[in-house]
C-alpha cells in the first residue's frame, strides 16, 4: 500500500528546496562582483534579477513552509532530486537574460550541464561572453562538482540531524568524518586547496605562453574549475585546443584525473594513509580500464593512420580518452574530429571509457570505478565458486579505505545502478538514431550526457531537436544523482496521485 504524502511532508520538502535555492542565489554574488569589477552593467542587471528571484522564492517558502520536524530519508531524496531541477530553473535566469541563448530550454540545458559537471553546452557565441557570465558558468560547475546539497549543508543546514539524508541523496554516501557537516567542509577544504595550487600552476604556464597577466588569471581559475570539477567547461569555444600548449594540456590532465578521485581517497592520502593510492579498488579499477581503453584507442589510431607520431597519440588520443574516462569533457581536438579522424574503434574506446566513468563520491559521473571493481570482483568470485568443491564457500573482499566483504545487498545495489545507466545510455542513443544521426555519433553524445562527461561528436548543438534536449537534461540529472533520488521523486509523485490517506485521522 502506498501512502499519500501529507501537507506537512510537502512543506518540509519545500523548506529544504528553499534553502538550496538560497544557496544558489548566494553563489551568484561572486559573478555579480566580477561583472561589477569588469563594468559589465547588463550582466550586473542579469545577476541582480537572478539573485532577487532566488531570495524571493526562499522568503516565500521560509514563511509558508517552515517545519520543526527533521527530514526523513524519503524527504532527503526528494529534496535532492527536485532541488536540482528547481535550482536549474533559477540558475538559468542570468544565462537566458544574457541573450546568448535561443530559448529558455537551452539556458536550462547549460545550467543542468554545469551543475552536473557535464560540460555540454548550447550557448551561442561563447568567445564573446561577458566575464561575469563566464565566471557563473565555471563557478556553477565547480560548485556542482562538490554537490549543491553539499554547499547547502556547509552553510545553511548546520546542526540539522537530517543532514546525512540530504548528503547521501546526492549520490555521495561516504562520510570522510563522523559528522556529515564536517565531511561537507572537508570536501570544500580539499577542493579549495587544489583550486589555489592548480590555478597558480595554470597562471604561470599561461603567462609563459604569453597571455597577459589579468586575462591569464581569469583563464587559469576558469580552466581549473572546469577540469577539477570534471565539468570540462573552458572560456573559449575551442576548449583546450585554443591554447595549443602541451604544458596546459598536461596540467589540466593531472587536475581532472585527480579531480575524478573519490574524496574519501583524497582525505585518506592527505591524512597519512598513503598506501591507499595503490591499494584502493577504485584506483586499481581506473588504472586497469584506462590502460585497456588506451590499447583499444591505439589500435584504432594505427588502423586509421591519420595520427602518426607518438605525440599525436598522446595529445589527441590519450588526453581526450582520459577526459572521457574521468567524465571531464575538455577537448584538445575539434568535435567533428571524433567522427572523422578517430575512426570507429578509437571512437568506441572513448565511448566505453565515458560509460565507465570516474570514482564514486567524486565530482565525476558514469558507472564509477567502485561499481566496476565490485562487479568484476563478484564475477571473479562466482567463477572461483564454480570451479571449487561444492562444500567450499568463496567470500569476496574489496579494499576501499577499509576492507569490505561483499554481500548480496551491495551487489544488488551495484547491479541496479549499472542497469539504470545502461538503460539511459541506450535510450539516448536510440533517440539520436531515430532523429537521423549516425549510430556512433548518437551513442557518443548520449553516453557523454548520461555519464556527465561533456565530450561531443558534434550532435549537441542549439539546432538539435527539443525532445532530445529534454531527454539529455533528464540524462544529466538522473546520471549525476545516481538514480535513487530520481526514483524517490517519481515514487512521491505516484504516491501523491494514487496513494491512500490512512492512519492520519
Amino acid at each position, binding site marked *: 500500500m502506498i501512502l499519500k504524502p501529507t501537507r506537512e511532508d510537502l512543506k518540509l520538502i519545500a523548506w529544504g528546496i528553499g534553502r538550496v535555492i538560497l544557496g544558489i542565489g548566494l553563489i551568484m554574488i561572486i559573478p555579480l562582483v566580477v561583472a561589477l569589477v569588469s563594468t559589465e552593467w547588463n550582466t550586473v542587471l542579469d545577476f541582480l534579477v537572478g539573485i532577487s528571484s532566488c531570495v524571493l522564492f526562499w522568503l516565500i517558502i521560509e514563511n509558508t513552509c517552515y517545519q520543526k520536524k527533521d527530514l526523513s530519508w524519503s524527504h532527503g531524496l526528494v529534496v535532492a532530486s527536485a532541488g536540482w531541477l528547481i535550482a536549474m530553473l533559477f540558475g538559468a535566469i542570468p544565462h537566458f537574460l544574457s541573450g546568448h541563448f535561443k530559448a529558455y530550454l537551452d539556458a536550462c540545458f547549460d545550467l543542468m550541464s554545469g551543475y552536473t559537471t557535464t560540460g555540454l553546452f548550447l550557448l551561442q557565441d561563447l568567445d564573446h561572453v561577458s566575464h561575469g557570465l563566464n565566471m557563473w558558468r565555471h563557478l556553477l560547475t565547480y560548485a556542482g562538482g562538490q554537490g549543491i546539497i553539499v554547499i547547502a549543508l556547509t552553510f545553511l543546514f548546520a546542526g540539522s540531524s537530517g543532514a546525512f539524508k540530504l548528503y547521501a541523496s546526492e549520490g555521495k554516501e561516504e562520510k570522510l568524518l563522523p559528522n556529515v557537516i564536517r565531511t561537507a567542509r572537508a570536501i570544500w577544504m580539499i577542493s579549495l*586547496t*587544489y583550486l589555489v*595550487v592548480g590555478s597558480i600552476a595554470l597562471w604561470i604556464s599561461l603567462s609563459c605562453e604569453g597571455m597577459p597577466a589579468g586575462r591569464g588569471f581569469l583563464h587559469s581559475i576558469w580552466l581549473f574549475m572546469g577540469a577539477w570539477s570534471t565539468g570540462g567547461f573552458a572560456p573559449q569555444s575551442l576548449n583546450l585546443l585554443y591554447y595549443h600548449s602541451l604544458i596546459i594540456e598536461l596540467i589540466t*590532465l*593531472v587536475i581532472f*584525473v*585527480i579531480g575524478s*578521485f573519490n574524496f574519501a581517497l*583524497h582525505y585518506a*592520502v*592527505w*591524512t*597519512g594513509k*598513503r598506501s591507499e*593510492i*595503490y591499494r584502493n579498488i577504485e*584506483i586499481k579499477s581506473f*588504472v586497469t580500464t*584506462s*590502460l585497456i581503453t*588506451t*590499447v583499444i584507442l*591505439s*589500435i584504432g*589510431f*594505427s*588502423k586509421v593512420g591519420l595520427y602518426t607520431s*607518438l605525440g599525436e*597519440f*598522446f595529445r589527441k*588520443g*590519450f588526453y581526450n580518452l582520459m577526459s572521457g574516462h574521468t567524465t571531464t569533457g575538455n577537448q584538445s581536438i575539434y568535435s567533428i574530429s571524433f567522427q572523422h579522424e578517430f575512426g570507429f574503434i578509437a571512437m568506441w574506446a572513448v565511448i566505453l571509457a565515458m560509460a565507465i566513468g570516474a570514482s564514486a563520491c567524486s565530482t565525476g559521473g558514469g558507472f564509477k570505478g567502485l561499481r566496476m571493481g565490485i562487479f568484476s570482483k563478484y564475477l571473479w568470485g562466482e567463477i572461483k565458486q564454480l570451479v571449487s568443491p561444492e562444500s567450499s564457500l568463496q567470500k569476496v573482499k574489496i579494499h576501499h579505505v577499509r576492507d569490505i566483504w561483499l554481500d548480496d545487498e551491495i551487489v544488488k545495489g551495484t547491479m541496479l545502478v549499472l542497469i539504470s545507466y545502461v538503460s539511459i545510455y541506450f535510450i539516448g542513443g536510440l533517440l539520436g538514431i531515430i532523429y537521423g544521426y549516425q549510430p556512433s555519433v548518437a551513442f557518443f553524445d548520449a553516453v557523454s550526457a548520461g555519464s556527465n562527461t561533456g565530450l561531443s561528436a558534434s550532435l549537441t548543438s542549439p539546432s538539435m531537436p527539443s525532445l532530445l534536449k529534454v531527454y539529455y537534461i533528464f540524462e544529466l540529472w538522473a546520471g549525476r544523482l545516481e538514480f535513487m533520488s530520481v526514483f524517490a521523486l517519481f515514487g512521491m509523485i505516484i504516491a501523491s496521485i494514487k496513494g491512500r490517506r490512512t492512519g492520519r485521522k
Partner: protein
Amino acid sequence: MNASRLRAGGMLLKKIGSYALGIIIESTAVLVLSGLALLLMFLVKTIMK
C-alpha cells in the same frame, strides 16, 4: 602560553606538510599512469606497423 602557541604552530605545519605530500603523491600517480599509457601506445604502434 608561548609553549602552547608553538605546539599549535607545529601541528599546523605538520598538517600543511601532510597535505602537500598528499598532493605530490596524487600528482605523481597521474604522471606514472600517463607514462605507462605512453609506453603502451608506443608498443601498440610498433606492433601494428
